[in-house]
């Protein structure tokens, strides 16, 4: 059991009379790449919100590195090593691109990496180079293109030095080459030993990236395993006609 980085067991989340998540089980091992797919409204973002603490699940338990984090506020979970990007990018608009990264570096990364305050800018630049935003370091974060905003979202999550990074539809609406950009970015995380949950509708990216694929339909997990067998699963095909 201690091999599991993230353990989601029997998580149920209701909004009034509507059940968004119904007894969902999910595990992620250290360094693993998990693709999470499912039709719109199937509960993927709700699950992410429960894992990260933006929402509280009514039933079930969420364990990270063996510890129950259900009572922890979001910022503590980030400090423990769970970072996420937002489906609709939420940059800190009054700050430059580089300053956006200072926040997670100062508040989250410090927990597992001794980072002196004067080294923060250097570390931020290093991450920006990794994602290809180095030339925009001092640009205002409010005027970026779509793909750059997505990169900033992911860069900000990476700057928290997580052990698990959840990427929430970072590729939605992007062109093929932009998708490849993001894909390369996420793939590099594997080298750093960071586990990734990729939530996407772009099937070719999911297939290329994932070690394992899980499928969520109307709040229930209907498949979980090797990518090839999951997409061949008749129930999956029935419930969710993927793209590409």
């Amino acid at each position, binding site marked *: 059991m201690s091999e599991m980085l993230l353990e989601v067991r029997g998580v149920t989340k209701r909004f009034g009379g509507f059940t968004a998540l119904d007894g969902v089980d999910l595990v992620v091992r250290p360094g693993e790449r998990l693709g999470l797919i499912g039709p719109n409204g199937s509960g993927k973002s709700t699950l992410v919100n429960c894992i990260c603490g933006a929402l509280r699940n009514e039933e079930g338990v969420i364990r990270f590195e063996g510890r129950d984090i259900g009572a922890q506020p979001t910022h503590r979970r980030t400090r423990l090593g769970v970072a996420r990007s937002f489906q609709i990018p939420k940059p800190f608009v009054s700050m430059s691109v580089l300053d956006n990264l200072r926040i997670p570096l100062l508040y989250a990364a410090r927990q597992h990496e001794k980072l002196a305050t004067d080294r923060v800018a250097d570390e931020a630049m290093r991450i920006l180079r990794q994602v290809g935003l180095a030339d925009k370091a001092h640009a205002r974060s409010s005027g970026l293109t779509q793909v750059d905003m997505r990169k900033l979202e992911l860069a900000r999550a990476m700057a*928290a030095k997580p052990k698990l990074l959840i990427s929430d539809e970072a590729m939605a609406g992007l062109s093929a080459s932009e998708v490849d950009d993001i894909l390369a970015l996420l793939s590099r995380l594997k080298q750093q030993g960071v586990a990734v949950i990729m939530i996407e509708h772009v099937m070719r990216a999911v297939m290329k990236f994932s070690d394992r694929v899980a499928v969520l339909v109307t709040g229930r997990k209907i498949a979980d395993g090797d990518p090839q067998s999951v997409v061949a699963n008749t129930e999956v095909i029935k419930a969710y006609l993927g793209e590409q």
Partner: protein
Amino acid sequence: MSNRAFAAVAFAIALAIAAASQLIANEFFFSAAYTVLLYVILATAWNILGGYTGYVNFGSAAFFAIGAYTTVALFYAFKAPLIVTIPAGTAVAGLAGLGLGYLTLRLRGVFFAIASLALAVVLFTFVVNWDFVGGARGAYVMQPSEVPFGLKRYIHLLFAIEVLMAAAALVIARAIETSTFGRGLAAIRDDELAAESAGVPTLKLKIISATVSGALMGMAGTTFPYYLSYIEPSSAFSLSYAVNSIAMPLIGGMMSWMGPLIGAVLLGTVQQLVQVTISSAWNLLIVGVLLVLFVTLAPNGIMGWVEAWRRRRNS
């Protein structure tokens, strides 16, 4: 410029102003300047929670009055001098900020704003019913006959204290702005959920911000009972404090310590002139109209214009 250097410069300027003031013969200057400086402190304090953190406080009058009435209460109970009542009033107001923050900052910003207004009304009712500090009739706090430091009149001392307090407030605001704490506040202001997800302990930082903001607003009120030697609830809790502490940072610019200073000096001076030439009701109307105009048309204030102009020049 480091914070220490800035502090040294600020206090040096403050002392210089206090000393130079002895050359001024016009006594009206002192009461007008005292009021303007009071607003510098109030606006700077408000902006720590308002502009830096993004939470609107409608109850500035409550914190101001806490500072004022702490002075009154301690004066009546122990004949406490200003050197005691200033830190005491600041501390009590800080506690009020802490309490209000702890109760309501978990919720949406609008609830904090309404609760702050509620605090002002509740406190006002409480003070009106509290006979020890004079209740609705008001309280008298006599200025000491001996003025220390060889100053000519007591109002000169009050002026000097206000200048130093204003310097202190500006130093604190600037120190916050450039610190890690200040970056965290800015993240909360820009996007609280994203800040929380980036590891910022949003509730803790908000509460600290509310405490500091409340404390400094209280500090602004601690010398007020001596200003007219008399204080009563309606003037201590005047709506003018609430609207000015919002209008001044808004007009000056809410992103930096310079905004509230500019806003307070400009708007404060205009008000002193209008009040004397026209009336105080018209004065307040002008402030209200300026507030609405700026918030709809120029929400980044004067500093925003400067920034935009600078950016256009560089591009």
